């Protein structure tokens, strides 16, 4: 049977550092998505909310918080959390309900309000919580892990800080024309090189900021979509996978990898398995893609993703970048939206925002950043504590 559902509408609240209630961004995005779908909030039978950990109790019940703000309508609700992969889980739950025939119209919303500076664990003394302990015992901020990956890439493949800067320059250029991007300013390689080192070899402009923002999509059954649009975009794959033991790449918030003693390695390493799940559901592969949105928490990490999603072999990402293959106009544009480099991360909104971008691209509505003739797009993302996120859309 087909596992496809339709994306009938997408909407976002612009990313920024607005300092308002996250619910406000969620409602704004939800209304925009419903308007694009040509539906009313009262048409929604199921609401999936992506939770936020930084906004108290309302953040842990994001679905209900947003439903209440839109006006109690009696819709069924679920709230999910999977760190940066939260949106993929919420979309997966909504898709499953539609495919099970339990509803025709689902709304998926994620929104966040973020504090200034580094993400930090929540307060208290929690000696059983690896997220608390990594800060306490190591001072291992998120950029520390990004720095480890970046340096590893330099050692394995000869990547250079100039390559990393080229990713920023590309994504900043892509984001210039995106009205939902937080940073809409051209960046040159020497701007990156002049920014202060945060976690060697990464500089401030190599690392994504934390942002406020909200994103929403209206998902419907294909039959419902055919009655409402002549331009359906299909969600053909959703991967919200966990690693297979042993996971031998160090992951946030861990102190160590799994050990490979006494066990055999999985056929596919975790990061490679994330997009593979979406490809398999859709019956497509990397060669079918017209564009990809990848999670550029750092510039260097974007290069890892090229390989993890199969755009090139390990070690080939720098050449792809230098050749312009991943720039708008190139063979397979990556982060046409501007990526996290132009947005900063608003955790529970991020995977949903990737779907918004792919939806607009596949509908030919991405304006200055349009990938010509885009018919298939992939989004990939990863959340700490072992959360994969990949979504595949096609016309």
């Amino acid at each position, binding site marked *: 049977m087909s596992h496809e559902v339709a994306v009938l509408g997408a909407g976002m609240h612009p990313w920024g550092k607005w300092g308002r209630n996250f619910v406000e961004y969620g409602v704004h995005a939800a209304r925009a998505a419903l308007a694009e779908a040509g539906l009313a909030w009262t048409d929604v039978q199921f609401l999936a909310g992506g939770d936020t950990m930084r906004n108290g109790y309302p953040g842990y019940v994001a679905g209900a918080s947003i439903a209440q703000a839109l006006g109690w309508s009696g819709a069924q609700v679920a709230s999910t959390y999977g760190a940066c992969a939260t949106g993929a889980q919420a979309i997966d739950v909504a898709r499953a309900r539609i495919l099970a025939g339990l509803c025709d119209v689902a709304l998926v919303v994620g929104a966040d309000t973020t504090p200034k500076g580094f993400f930090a664990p929540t307060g208290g003394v929690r000696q059983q919580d690896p997220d608390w302990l990594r800060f306490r015992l190591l001072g291992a901020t998120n950029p520390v892990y990004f720095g480890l990956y970046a340096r590893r890439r330099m050692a394995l493949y000869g990547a250079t800080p100039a390559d990393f800067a080229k990713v920023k320059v590309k994504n900043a250029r892509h984001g210039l024309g995106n009205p939902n991007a937080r940073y809409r300013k051209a960046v040159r390689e020497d701007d990156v090189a002049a920014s202060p080192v945060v976690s060697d070899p990464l500089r401030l402009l190599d690392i994504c900021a934390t942002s406020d923002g909200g994103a929403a999509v209206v998902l419907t059954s294909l039959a419902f979509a055919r009655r409402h649009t002549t331009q359906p975009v299909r969600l053909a794959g959703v991967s919200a996978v966990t690693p297979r033991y042993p996971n031998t790449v*160090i992951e946030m918030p861990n102190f160590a990898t799994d050990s490979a003693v006494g066990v055999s390695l999985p056929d596919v390493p975790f990061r490679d398995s994330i997009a593979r799940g979406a490809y398999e559901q859709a019956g497509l592969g990397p060669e079918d893609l017209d564009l990809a949105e990848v999670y550029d928490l750092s510039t260097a990490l974007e290069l890892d993703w090229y390989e993890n999603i199969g755009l090139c072999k390990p070690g080939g990402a720098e050449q792809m970048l230098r050749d312009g293959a991943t720039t708008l106009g190139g063979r397979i544009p990556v982060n046409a939206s501007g990526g996290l480099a132009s947005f900063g991360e608003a955790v529970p909104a991020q995977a949903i925002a990737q779907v918004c971008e792919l939806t607009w691209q596949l509908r030919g509505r991405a304006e200055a950043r349009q990938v010509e003739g885009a018919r298939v797009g992939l989004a990939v993302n990863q959340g700490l504590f072992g959360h994969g996120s990949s979504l595949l859309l096609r016309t």
Partner: protein
Amino acid sequence: MPTPLPVRQPAIEGWFTQDGGAPRLLGSRCTACGTIFFPKETFACRNPECGSDTLDEIPLSRHGTLWSFTDNRYPPPPPFVASDPFEPYAIAAVELAAEKMVVLGQVAKGVTTEQLAVGMEMELIIEALFEDESGIHEIWKWRPA
């Protein structure tokens, strides 16, 4: 009267030891499948093919090779206790051959990233993490061997 020396205590109990001389990290090993955990897994083996609930404490190798490294140029947020003024420090990911795993740790005070290279041999030491009114809180760190 001489000022008493500050009390030295581990910043976390049971993760490392200096008993018997050389500092060692303390992990655990599943008695059924032999896989190893750090920090210690105490209640069940996490190998999904195994499922044993018998794990023994074992000391991990003191030496390994540098898998990658980075540093903190800005003070991490609490609960990290940052020195004032803050002194940047390096962080290492070290691959242990016998355990087939990579373990993170701060790098010894005074060693900068310019002195590190992926692939070099590293060894474990115990050093101060921070000092407060209750004394010096110690942690494991890596340094070039």
